Structure formats: C-alpha cells, structure tokens
C-alpha cells in the first residue's frame, strides 16, 4: 500500500527519530539482561521474553487489583523476578552450564514454552493493557508520547545504575571476572556459582522491569515474549558485544531502524527489519556474537 505523505520535512523525520529513540528504552533493559546472562554463563536465555511477559502481567495485576501505578510496582516486580531468576538458575540452568550450548538453548526453549502455556492458562489470551499514562509532551515542536518518555527515562536510569554496579561494586567486578574466564575467576577466590546466580537473577529482574514498562506502552498478551526476545538478540548483535552500555546504544539503534523502516515502508515490513538485521550482522561476525571466548 502506498503512503501518500504530504510533506516529508525535517520535523516529521525528527518525529520519527524521536519515536524510535524512545522505543529503544524498553529494548535496552531487555537486552541488558540477556547480555548479562550470556556474558557470565554463555547461556542463551530463550525464555527471556517470557520473563518480560511475566513482569508485564505482574504490573497489570498490581494495577488492576490494587491500583498500584507501574512505576511504583517496579519496586515489587524487580525483586520478584530476581527471585524467579534465582530459582530458574538453581533448579535448571546450573545443570547445563558446562554442557554444549545447544543443551542450554533447548532447555531455555522448553522453559519459555512452559511459561507461555502457563500464562495462557492463567491469564487467557485476551489482549490487555495498563491505561496508566497517556498524552503527548510538546518538545521543540515534536509531540513525544508521555508514556514512552517516562519509560525511556526509567530505563535509562536503571541501565545506568546496573552499569555502575558492574563497574564499581565488588560483586559487579566478580560478575565481569566470571564472564571473562570462570576458571581463573574461581582460582582468584570468586564464588563462581554465586556469581551465576546473581547474573541470572539480575538479568531476570531487568527483564521484569522491561515488562513493567512495556505494560503501559504496548499490548499485553501471553505470547508477547517471542517478539521481544528476537529484538533483544538483534540489539546485542548490534551493539551489545559484552558491554552493558553498548546494549543501550544498540537498543536505540534498533528502535531508530524500526521507526524509519516503518516510516519508509509500513509497519508490516518493519517487523522483518530486526530479523534480517540480526541475520546479516551474525553473518558478518561469524566468529560468534561477542568475539569473546567460545562456549
């Protein structure tokens, strides 16, 4: 279908760019968690999207039942998902960490199915959303969506916090050491098992945060996890490269790509953008996603 645009002027393009950047906020949180888990454990968490989904439903539940606004709910949901992450790691993931990456891949795939099915059963497949914020904010002639602006802000703050934690705190350094070389880290006296638990928990908490933010921007339904997961990988491939901050940049880039692709063609085609992008970049770097030590 052709789109007869009256004037493609600078303002419109700026508008598209702004939307794209804001879109990146949620992606960043999701990708950050994914990155962390892969970095520390070389496990590709195919269930990461479902963790986001659970976070979104938690926010929905808290809002609908007790009127808790999503931003406040973050304080509850993040620890909750952190706990879930610990559980998953302790019960399941830890058993396959040292096995070929395929095993963990399939395992997490199974987990994602389990979580999706459970959500379908528990919440029904109806589409829902959290009518929290709405309206636009006028910034220099651009209409920025208020909910997205808020989500972006929160995502940025959270990302910065985690980044600082990884950089300067004791356990943050332990995580990074484990990511670089678990055996050496062990020898240096780092409790590698605990580091892995922490990584998965933190990653899950970030996914939950992303889900909470997504709950009032996007539509919520049990199968929503899948799309986000693929986008998460696209983000890591674009800018993650083992760097937590890089994931943020990559996320914004993906958001921009999608926004402009939807503008240039239509929303349908834009869907395919992330997927093809992911594939192309993977091809260009056949030595692996991060160029780090092979699993």
């Amino acid at each position, binding site marked *: *279908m*052709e*789109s*007869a*645009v*009256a*004037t*493609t*002027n600078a303002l*419109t393009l700026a*508008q*598209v760019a702004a*939307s794209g950047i804001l*879109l990146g906020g949620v992606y960043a949180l999701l990708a950050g968690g994914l990155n962390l888990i892969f970095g520390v454990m070389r496990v590709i968490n195919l269930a990461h999207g479902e963790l986001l989904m659970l976070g979104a439903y938690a926010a929905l539940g808290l809002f609908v039942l007790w009127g808790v606004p999503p931003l406040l709910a973050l304080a509850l949901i993040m620890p909750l998902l952190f706990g879930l992450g610990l559980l998953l790691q302790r019960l399941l993931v830890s058993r396959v960490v040292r096995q070929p990456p395929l095993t963990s891949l399939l395992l997490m795939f199974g987990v994602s199915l389990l979580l999706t099915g459970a959500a379908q059963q528990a919440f*029904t*497949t*109806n*589409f829902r*959303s959290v*009518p929290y914020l*709405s*309206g*636009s904010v*006028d910034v220099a002639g651009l*209409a920025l*969506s*208020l*909910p*997205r602006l808020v989500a972006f802000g929160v995502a940025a703050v959270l990302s910065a916090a985690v980044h600082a934690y990884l950089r300067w705190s004791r356990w943050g350094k332990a995580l990074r050491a484990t990511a670089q070389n678990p055996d050496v880290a062990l020898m240096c006296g780092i409790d590698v098992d605990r580091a892995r638990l922490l990584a998965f928990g933190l990653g899950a908490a970030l996914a939950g945060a992303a889900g909470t933010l997504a709950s009032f921007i*996007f*539509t919520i*339904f049990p199968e*929503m996890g899948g*799309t986000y997961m693929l986008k998460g990988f696209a983000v890591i491939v674009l800018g993650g490269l083992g760097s937590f901050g890089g994931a943020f940049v990559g996320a914004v880039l993906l958001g921009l790509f*999608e*926004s*402009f692709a*939807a*503008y240039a063609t*239509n*929303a*349908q085609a*834009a*869907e395919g953008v992330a997927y093809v992008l992911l594939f192309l970049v993977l091809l260009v770097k056949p030595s692996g996603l991060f160029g780090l030590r092979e699993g």
Partner: protein
Amino acid sequence: MTGFSRRRIVASAAAISGVAALALTGCGGAQGGGATGGTASDKTPVRIGASVSATGSNGNIGRYQKEAYELWVEMVNQRGGLLGRPVEMTILDDQTDPTTGAKLYEKLITEDKVDLVLGPYASSVTLSASTVTEKYKYPLLAAGASASDIWKRNYKYVFGVYSVAESYFYGVIDLALKNNLKKIAIVNEDTVFPNATATGTAAYARQKGMQIVFQEKYPQKATDVSSMLTKIKAAVPEVLVGGSYEPDSMLITRQMKDLDVNVKMLAFSVGAANPDFQGSLGAVADHVFGPSMWEPDLKTPGNKEFLDAYKKKWSRDPDYHSATGFAGGQIMEAAVKKANSLDREKLREALSTLETTTVLPGKYKVDDTGTQMGHIPVTIQWQGKEKAIVSPDNMATGKPKLPMPEWKAR
C-alpha cells in the same frame, strides 16, 4: 535378515498397533459424545454445533456472540424447539484461530454428528471453517462475519447475516461529505475482514469524490503504530477510518493521543460500537464513530424482548455481535419452519430464498451467492457516555457532533 531386527519390528508394530487401537476407539472422550442411532422419536433433540472465540485476540467480542447463541437456544426451547424437538447446542472455543475453527467444525460434523451448524466469530475463522461446512454440505449462517471474500468462492452453503464489510463505512463517508470533509486516511489490520472494509471504503470514498491522502496496512497483533501515525499526522487528513478489530481500535486511539494526532472525524470498524470501548477508554472514546449492525434503541421486531432477556440472563448489555448471533438462530429457525424439515439440502434451498425479519434492522435476504442484501447497518457516535445513532436518518436518535476536539483541548 539385514536391517530388520525382531526388536525393531516389535517396536514399530507396537507403535502402529497403538495408532490402530486409537483409531478403533475413535479417539474416545470427545466432547459431546455422538449419540447416533436410536429411534428417531420426535423428542430426539436437534443438535446444533458451533465454535466461537471465547478467548484469543477477539475473545472479548466473541463471547457476546456465544452468549447470544445460548440465549437463543433457551428461548427457542421455550417456544417448543425446532419442529417440536428440543434444541441442544454445543459451542466450542476456537480462540479466533482459523485452523482451530476448521478443525472444530470438522469434529462437530464428523465425530459429534450434529444436525446443524451456526457460524463462528470473525471473517478469518469463518473463511476457514466454511471450507469444512461446504465440503460436508452443511448450510452455514455466518452470524459473525462479513468480508465479501467469503462469498466470492462459488460456495453454495454459506449465507450472510449482515452487511458486507465493504459497506461498513458508507454511513461515515456520507456524513463526512455532508459536513464538507474531503480528505480521508484509511488504515487497516492485514487480515480478511479489515482488508475488505478498507477496500470497500476506499472505493466508495473515491467514487464520492473524497481525496485519500493516506492508506496503509499494519500487521496482525501490532503493538506499535507510531510511525504510521506520524505519517498520518504529516498527511493532515480530516477523517481517519480504521478497518480494525477491538484491540487495535483501542491501540490506535491511545497512540493518537500520545502523539497528538488530531483529526476532525475518527471512526473504527469494530470495537467502536461495543460498550466496553467507552468503558476502557473513558473520555478518550468521546466523539468516535463506528458502524453498528444493531443497536438496542432500534424498533425492530422482538428487539425489546431480546434486550430484556439478554440483560436478565447475562447481567450485561448486549453488543451488536450478540444481536447478529441471535439473528443467526432466528434465521435458522425460520428456515427450518419454511422447509418443514431438518434435511440440509432443503434447508439450503430455504435459506437461499427466505425473506424474514429478525432483531437486526432491515431484513434477511440473500442473493444467489449467499451475500446478505437486505440488512441495513447504522452508524453510531459516542456522545459522552452514551451512543447515539446518527445515520440513517429514519433510525437516528441523535445528531452527529463534529468536529472532534483536539486531544490537548479535552
């Protein structure tokens, strides 16, 4: 023997025998067990089967149709049933999935051996399920679908209950022109019904001299339409028409507010007429137009009785999808009476030539493809917390309020 150890044969034999055993038992445990045989006494119930989305992306609306079917069964049994026999209806859930719908109808027809069927919700599911009913020669009343594609396949057993999707927005377009609005933007979800709506609307708009400044599709289950809305904002339409289902109607409205996209007239094909639209969106729903196949205020035969009975049974107001579902039952009843038989060939004949009234405005009358010709859709607009019927004039309960105020001005 090379390659065929006995143990392997045993394993395969076990597997195959297992399958054969399943086949023999006819996969017992199926819902609504087939009570075949027995003497055909005139008290044997008439069994009707249908699948309706109770869950899935359109579960909210599908449930209205399901409730209507069940209400109709109750009411028809109070009247003595069909041809003096009580009616029993089995309603399964297809989750708005076309394949599931087809599978369910096949099950109902071949396994549960129902006598008659009624249609599912959504054109996509109906399109798929009707291939099954056509194969087995079961007349299907499409009580939840309207895309004309359903009747473009030369099928003989599918009958429309309400106006085709293409004509949904004729009322809106006429109103726009009356108010001197010329520039229109059309968007739609990329599935059967919304495509049909958009195509028909575009053709009609062009015919009436409107200028289509923007037309685009968005994917099914879209979660973000902001780029599309940005393009729309740049195109500056006066009217925006969405060929959409309930979830996307709400999504677009919300995102329009978030991006400050203002138009003078906003209309959605599905969802706008539903009571939940205002319930979920609150003030944001005000001034939105939509086509409706039925409204409670209409003075159609049996409408008040239907309304009261529905509210009593289900503790909520019916949506127009309830009415179309109910009408499906009414039409079936009339056809059975006309044919004086449950023979499906005779019913097919009857349905092709029948003319009858239902709770829906207009009357039931199909052309030789089965497309519904006699139904008259109306256009509604949300005015405050109530809906007003604004078109056609002879059924109107209020005047249209134009233009729609800007988001920031509310």
